[in-house]
């Protein structure tokens, strides 16, 4: 299914999103694969229970053997039998700055991934396609690092107090003013952890008697925040505006479920870029719906801030919309700014309310000063206020890298999900064995990729996810593409049945291509 939307006045540019359907044969084989693994899982459990095979799990203390078991046996079935086999694809330890190239500590396992030992060797210069380093600010030299070092020697590493007590430093105030200016909103507030920004502020905004409409594929932090708030949650199909409109209509017309009283508020939770799908939210339509039905919009720009838009100001700028239309603009500093933490931006009343009633302001330690300085320097760089054009150049480089990479992968015949402009590129693997194989083969060829399976994705749709960065040069991308091509042939990953005619090598202009069906 491919959408190319121009939708009259709402969209100012084509919106190209593609989610090719799973080929039937592949789906069947995937289920068979999981079936075989499950059977073997039962067999191994049986052998472990009857002591034919040694059980390598950690076990409960002798003194506490008659306590109620802490874990149900079935809960860990997936962990023991499927996850353990390919555990070496995750939690890979690195020992250098997470830039475009990274050094990894070599680790081996002599007992099929139950335990790891470090050989002490370091694998150098692995092309890093897994870290969220969209604008390449993960650097150990440069203006950001120097500024952070200065602030570290002046202020120290920690703060030891909360925002409302004695932890509000002048640096925090400076950061918040800068972030508000960057986003084009009246005021902003920064928090120490992106996950916690969602889980601690959504409960402050909505409560019982309110309705939350949340996208199917929202991040765990949004789901947790929605649950903790106590409001009613209804889920609409991923990026599907008809589903959202239907829910909105029903909500206003029928009111609360049992009492039929009208809802106090309706809050729509969406993300800018969905990190597992690579899709971009249909923001113009969401805003049009929000205005028509008088609800509020909470936009989580964790992956899209800095990565979309001609000057890096996120998905609102990408669509050419007004930031004031979004009621709550939330984002994180971890991805494009090379630091840690989250922010919320919006009208002054909203931020004043959050300063008083947010859980984080009252109970959680404020952000560490060198991290704050890194954000300040990187935001100034993106805005061009540090006197250079590095920021702009990086945003453009990222956009070019994205288009190039996606086009080449599609030409090779892989199934790629998501929007043309999103720097998150999921490549479908489907079969469980290929998850482990892909990760390992790419590592052998010195390329670090991220593979994800169940439960982060639906069970048959496991994928490899590439995160592009402005720090990737064209040579690195070409090397990576060559290796991906090789591994794709080796593992037979080229499932796509819609082949694109490869372009004659025209450098990065607005592409219009012909498509032929095989």
């Amino acid at each position: 299914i491919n959408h190319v939307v121009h939708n009259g006045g709402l969209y100012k540019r084509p919106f190209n999103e593609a989610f090719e359907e799973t080929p039937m044969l592949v789906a069947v084989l995937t289920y068979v694969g999981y079936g075989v693994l499950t059977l073997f899982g039962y067999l191994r459990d049986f052998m472990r229970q009857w002591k034919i095979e040694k059980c390598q799990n950690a076990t409960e203390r002798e003194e506490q053997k008659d306590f109620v078991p802490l874990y149900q046996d079935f809960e860990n079935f997936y962990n023991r039998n499927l996850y353990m086999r390919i555990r070496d694809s995750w939690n890979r330890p690195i020992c250098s700055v997470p830039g475009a190239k990274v050094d990894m500590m070599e680790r081996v396992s002599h007992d099929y991934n139950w335990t790891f030992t470090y050989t002490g060797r370091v694998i150098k210069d692995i092309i890093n396609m897994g870290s969220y380093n969209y604008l390449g600010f993960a650097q150990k030299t440069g203006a950001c690092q120097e500024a952070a070092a200065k602030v570290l020697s002046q202020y120290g590493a920690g703060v030891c107090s909360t925002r409302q007590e004695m932890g509000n430093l002048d640096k925090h105030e400076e950061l918040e003013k800068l972030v508000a200016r960057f986003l084009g909103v009246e005021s902003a507030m920064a928090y120490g952890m992106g996950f916690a920004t969602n889980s601690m502020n959504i409960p402050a905004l909505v409560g019982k008697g309110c309705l939350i409409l949340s996208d199917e594929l929202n991040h765990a932090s949004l789901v947790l925040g929605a649950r903790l708030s106590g409001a009613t949650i209804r889920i609409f199909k991923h990026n599907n505006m008809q589903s959202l409109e239907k829910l909105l209509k029903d909500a206003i017309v029928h009111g609360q479920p049992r009492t039929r009283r009208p809802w106090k508020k309706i809050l729509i939770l969406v993300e800018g870029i969905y990190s597992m799908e690579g899709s971009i939210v249909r923001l113009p339509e969401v805003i049009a719906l929000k205005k028509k039905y008088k609800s509020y919009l909470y936009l989580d720009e964790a992956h899209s801030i800095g990565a979309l838009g001609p000057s890096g100001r996120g998905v609102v700028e990408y669509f050419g919309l007004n930031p004031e239309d979004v009621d709550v603009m939330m984002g994180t500093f971890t991805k494009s700014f090379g630091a840690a933490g989250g922010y919320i931006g919006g009208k002054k009343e909203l931020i004043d309310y959050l300063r008083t009633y947010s859980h984080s302001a009252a109970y959680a330690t404020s952000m560490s000063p060198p991290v704050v300085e890194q954000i300040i320097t990187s935001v100034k760089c993106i805005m061009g206020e540090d006197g250079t054009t590095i920021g702009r150049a990086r945003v453009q480089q990222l956009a070019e890298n994205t288009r190039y990479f996606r086009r080449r992968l599609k030409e090779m015949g892989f199934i790629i999900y998501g929007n043309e402009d999103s720097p998150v590129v999921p490549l479908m693997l489907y079969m469980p064995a290929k998850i482990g194989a892909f990760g390992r083969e790419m590592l052998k060829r010195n390329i670090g990729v991220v593979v994800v399976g169940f439960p982060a994705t639906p069970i048959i749709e496991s994928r490899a996810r590439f995160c592009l960065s402005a720090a990737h040069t064209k040579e690195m991308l070409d090397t990576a593409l060559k290796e991906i091509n090789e591994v794709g042939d080796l593992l037979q990953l080229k499932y796509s049945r819609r082949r694109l005619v490869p372009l004659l090598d025209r450098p990065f202009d607005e592409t219009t291509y012909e498509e032929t069906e095989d």
Partner: protein
Amino acid sequence: QEKEELIEEWQPEPLVPSVPKDHPALNYNIVSGPPTHIITVNGKECINFASFNFLGLLNNEKVKSAAQASLKKYGVGTCGPRGFYGTFDVHLELEERLAKFMRTEEAIIYSYGFATIASAIPAYSKRGDIVFVDEAACFAIQKGLQASRSNIKLFKHNDMADLERLLKEQETEDQKNPRKARVTRRFIVVEGLYMNTGDICPLPELIKLKYKYKVRIFLEESLSFGVLGEHGRGITEHFGINIDDIDLISANMENSLASIGGFCCGRSFIIDHQRLSGQGYCFSASLPPLLAAAAIEALNIMEDNPDIFQTLRTKCEWMHKALQGISGLKVVGESFSPALHLQLEESCGSRENDVKLLKRVVDYCMNSGIAFTQARYLEKEEKCLPPPSIRVVITVEQTEQELDKAASLLKEAAQSLLN
């Protein structure tokens, strides 16, 4: 057609109600410069009695240079969660060092202190399980319990008889339905040193109750880590209890270790589960390496200078004694607790007026060079809201003259403002 009308007519509430300009929690103190022993608050230079910098490590040169070295090697951020190239060798080293220091098998690090216990509890306790928690538990524990959707049973603060009564009631319930009881997990969540009341939990009795009624204990040691015990290992060392008797110890590194983040330690059987099911661990970026390096260096200092804990305790006892006898204010907290509360002996009638009065006391002290702060709570969200109070924090860097000065200033303020 009707539907169109209904849609037209419906008016939602404003997204947020407006906050009055003089709300006490709205106007933050602005600290210019580092929040160390001498702190510049709102332009005035004061001695810091409000930041939880118990061991004075915030301004320590060795800690700062370790963090600088790490900054030069790794940059600032980690650009990813632990599972996806966000695990650095410093994280692994810090986890090993913490496990060795606390003498447990394994430790796990979180990047945010609040998220540590709030992610740890829901990883083990699910819908249908039972958690017995103290009334004075801090907000992070309350949020963890809310996220876990388990049955919460509150027992009166530090009241073992009340807890035993609840446990006995649960036992009789179990006998009515033994099949359900066999799969219902039970937990007790307590803090080593309570943030809201400044006293410690009676851990030996809790251990006895644990084995008698087969409940697991989760201990939250944010304030007691690096404070209690001969080597700073917390309340288990203070009471001389075998650390394996406690199922999970959770602490944040933001108080004694003067860094950011938190950790949980315990047996591998328990801690390893959080690596896949701790929400704040799996779905969030890892701790910036410079903060992990600062924490490692702080641990080094703690291990090399075990006498700072005794120094801190002496100062706490000194201050506790000095604060006795202030008319109108009573001291709440143990004599060796470095975080005390000063509550009004007689309330003025409403919480709002109490808060205003305490603010005047705090302002008086700040104008004369001692920085205190009021303990801040979210009044509508807390289960058992503590009364308004002034937080007094004692650190190793404060000299005895400064402690005396602070105590006498408080006496003066109480005399002039509270009578």
